[in-house]
């Protein structure tokens, strides 16, 4: 839920990157952190295990500056992707204003991706939201991998709603900002 603070002239929105383990959620945030104007970003916070896997979430606050008198901020979060952290994903989803579903395009990950989208729908219902009427975009990540499935096939089976989707190679930044632009605009349009 976005927060509009008239007294302090601030608007805050929460965007959550969701998807299976190793699909590139953290990589998306790291690229944004590395590439964006430093004055527009805060410190990136990662709660990870010793092996650098996300344990709870990554958090990156972005400051769009003052727009018509309102300081506008986006807070980007990732969820932990591993199956056993389902309850943690639910906890991080709480209060989200928009969701980016990051898909690992590799054929061997297809089934896990499909299960993860189904889980996301269930989790949204649990927090009283309907993914059909919610700012939601998909990123087809790892397009450079040899076993990456064709995008039309991914679209047909994983994007049945036809939400905006973007091809990406998050590790070198391709598609990262296109995805972020789309979800940010989508979130603002729903305010």
């Amino acid at each position, binding site marked *: 839920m*976005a927060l*509009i603070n008239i007294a302090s002239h601030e608007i805050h929105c929460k965007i959550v990157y969701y998807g299976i383990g190793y699909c590139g959620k953290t990589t998306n945030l790291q690229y944004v952190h590395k590439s964006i104007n430093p004055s527009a970003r805060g410190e990136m916070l990662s709660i990870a295990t010793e092996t650098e896997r996300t344990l709870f979430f990554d958090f990156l606050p972005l400051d769009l500056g003052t727009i018509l008198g309102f300081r506008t901020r986006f*807070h980007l979060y990732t969820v932990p992707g591993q199956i056993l952290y389902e309850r943690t994903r639910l906890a991080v989803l709480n209060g989200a204003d928009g969701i980016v579903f990051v898909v690992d395009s590799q054929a061997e990950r297809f089934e896990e991706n499909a299960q993860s989208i189904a889980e996301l729908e269930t989790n949204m219902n649990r927090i009283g939201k309907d993914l059909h009427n919610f700012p939601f975009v998909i990123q087809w990540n790892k397009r450079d991998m040899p076993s990456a499935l064709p995008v039309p096939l991914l679209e047909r089976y994983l994007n049945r709603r036809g939400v905006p989707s973007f091809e990406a190679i998050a590790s070198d930044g391709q598609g990262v900002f296109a995805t972020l632009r789309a979800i940010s605009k989508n979130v603002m349009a*729903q305010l």
Partner: protein
Amino acid sequence: MEQLTNLIISDRELATISSLLIKLMGDTNATSALLIDKSGQVVAMQGTGVRRDATNLGALLAGVFSSSREVAKLLNEKDFRNIFQQGVQENIYTSMIEEQWLLVIIFDRLTHIGLVKVLSKKASEELGRILERVRSDTTRTKSSVINVQFRSSVEDTIDLLFRD
């Protein structure tokens, strides 16, 4: 009730919240008091120690609280309404307000947890009433902030800032 996609806090309500936090700090001798949205965003804060780290603190405390509610469900408990984190120097007491906000009190050894608990509960009731007013005012006041001009300016800024 219509599901709100945002909450708008007016000048008047923020002033009421701030004075309530100041009073709570004074009465409990706490070092800081914060009101956080369940999404992790800081609504209001008082006290000097946390100002610089408030954004991170908000995200982490909301995450901890949200996570503990999932733990409660696994134990077939409806939820945990409060969390107490005890440190050597500083302690944090967090309580939930109407499924939407978190009241966070940070205090040191000079304060007793019992006092914080009782006064937090009283303050939570008052904050619950404020939240109710904020919810009912939100739909009415939204158009004064989020208008066509604002939306178009935000889009321009997004294009400018989030570019390859």
